[in-house]
């Protein structure tokens, strides 16, 4: 490679490293492809380098604003000719230089926030600490895949009884008997866990429980094959990718940086509408076990929340709502919105402590069987 690229290649190699330091996943082979792509394209202007970078380093669309900001900072500051490209910081993004490190303040699109809810927002940054429920959570994670409702999958697996005939196994068995088919081997469709959609209220009234709920979400993300996690308060934030980090503390730190509306107001209806308005997000609810962790104390218009839950229920397999207010077994929802959506919920459970919440979630499958 070094024979074909000039000495000015150093900034090109440094760029993937800069991306990595900002959380982008870039493999060494992608760096090689990037260099090859730059060579193929000319490059005649810095925009050719950008195109080569986008095509080979493959940023997610929601990471594009951050990617472009880093690109501009790196290349237009370092190798770009002044005036060759006019760099105007995006309205929703500021790039700040702070004590030698670049702090990127990211806008709504970057963390996949849906449309911002209307009304005053109290935006805050919070330090999340993993609560000391490690044992409880681990046992919960172990039990979860069998506890949540499954559906029949589309993959077949060998079985004693089943409608389908496993020709490959039957043939192998027949060959042992000189081509005589003594018994037909069977196939059946293996059950698969349904996808899980976790919606976590991080508003002020849920302040005491937010840390524990995020830790629980981390456990669920690692226990189940298909999980999506969103937080809502005055805005909607997708946390799935952050929570996929295996180390819990690391994942929670990452997640706390994404959520901008800790301990603010609650606009459940608007947040759910925002969720359903993004077709990609709405798709996550299709056929899913939807788990909502919220006290349901809606400050916005109750009719919006009722309509949103109706739309959500139409897509989901079932919605289970867990509230810390349900510590009393005789709990009945008080707010107009929660009372109205109660018939749409498969269960309204107790989330007043981590162990109670774990028990309640593990009971979802049993409740259906009963």
């Amino acid at each position, binding site marked *: 490679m070094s024979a074909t690229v000039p000495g000015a290649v150093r900034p090109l190699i440094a760029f993937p490293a800069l991306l990595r330091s900002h959380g982008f996943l870039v493999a060494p082979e992608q760096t090689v492809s990037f260099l090859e792509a730059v060579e193929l394209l000319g490059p005649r202007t810095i925009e050719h380098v950008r195109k080569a970078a986008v095509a080979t380093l493959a940023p997610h669309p929601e990471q594009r604003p951050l990617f472009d900001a880093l690109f501009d900072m790196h290349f237009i500051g370092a190798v770009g000719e002044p005036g060759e490209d006019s760099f105007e910081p995006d309205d929703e993004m500021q790039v700040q230089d702070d004590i030698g490190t670049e702090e990127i303040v990211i806008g709504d699109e970057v963390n996949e926030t849906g449309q911002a809810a209307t009304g005053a927002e109290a935006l805050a940054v919070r330090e999340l600490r993993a609560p000391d429920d490690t044992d409880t959570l681990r046992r919960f994670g172990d039990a979860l895949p069998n506890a949540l409702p499954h559906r029949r999958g589309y993959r077949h697996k060998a079985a004693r009884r089943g409608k389908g005939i496993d020709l490959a196994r039957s043939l192998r068995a027949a060959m042992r008997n*000189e081509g005589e088919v003594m018994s037909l081997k069977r196939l059946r469709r293996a059950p698969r866990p349904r996808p899980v959609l976790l919606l976590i209220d991080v508003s002020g009234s849920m302040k005491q429980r937010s840390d524990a709920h995020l830790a629980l979400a981390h456990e669920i993300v690692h226990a189940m094959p298909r999980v999506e996690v969103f937080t809502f308060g005055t805005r909607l934030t997708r946390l799935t990718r952050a929570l996929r980090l295996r180390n819990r503390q690391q994942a929670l730190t990452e997640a706390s940086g994404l959520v901008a509306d800790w301990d603010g107001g609650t606009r459940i209806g608007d947040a759910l509408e925002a969720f359903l308005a993004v077709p990609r997000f709405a798709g996550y609810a299709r056929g899913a076990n939807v788990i909502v962790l919220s006290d349901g104390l809606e400050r916005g218009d109750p009719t919006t929340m009722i309509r949103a839950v109706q739309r959500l229920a139409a897509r989901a397999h079932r919605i289970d709502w867990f509230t810390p207010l349900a510590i009393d077994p005789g709990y009945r929802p008080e707010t107009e919105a929660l009372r109205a959506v109660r018939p749409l919920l498969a269960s309204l459970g107790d989330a007043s402590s981590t162990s109670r919440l774990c028990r309640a979630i593990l009971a979802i499958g049993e409740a259906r069987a009963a």
Partner: protein
Amino acid sequence: MALRTTIAGISSPEALAEALKSAMYLADDGIATAGYLALALGKPLLLEGAPGVGKTEAAKAIAGILGRQLIRLQCFEGIDAAAALYEWNYPRQMLAIRQAQDGANIDIYRDEFLIERPMLTALRRPESTVLLIDEIDRSDHEFEAFLLEFLSDFSISIPERGTLRAAERPVVILTSNRTRDLHEALRRRCVYHYIAYPDPAREAAIIMLRSSAVAESTARAVVAAVGILRNEPLSKPPGVAEAVDWAEAATALAHTGASWPEAFRRSIGAAIKDEEDLAHLRPRLAQFIPGMAA
């Protein structure tokens, strides 16, 4: 690996865009660059984007300009190696065993018993085919992992036959609607492009290119309307294909004598295909119907 700077006479992204135009596909800079790089680097091309922005069309157009047959593997949940790679023709194998009972030794793993599926076909005839792995996000994680092996070194292991390796790297195009995140390992093996909705001028040009019956004013009106519709919280925002359909449907109705706003209103089903979305739009329909807004 030596870079192929010219593929089928295409020596730059601009040349690819020009060739795609002759195949009725108007490519923007981004897709022309990504397409050119994928062909030159011999890597798969991963196209992501909302439904209806023209991902599959792009693959068809690329196959068209390369003069190759497009082999389409439609992904679905539960798709497995037997559907994607190859399968043995078990009944014929069984029959052959029964017929050869008189001590004759029969090889039941000959080519005649092998049923080629799209990936094996593309591997065996890389110079004459383009493999489209459509809607990879619909498949499950097992299949994605299995695909990684294929896309890394373009080889397939058939236990009874050994490893088959492509003589040259086949052209592979993957599409995804982003209904789930793809594995990073898959993304990094590909040249990537996210297809956004085209800008209004390009979309109007696409409509007119696709349908010669549609007048320019109609195309512009439809593009302006779908532009507004895409900013509404709809569960199924209209894609480019829907914009083309709407322009065609409204033109057809106008030919039967309907006035323009009426033709657009009656044919809105070509653009909006969800009752919930229509219910949301109905009170303000006049704002979206071309020619009705004040």
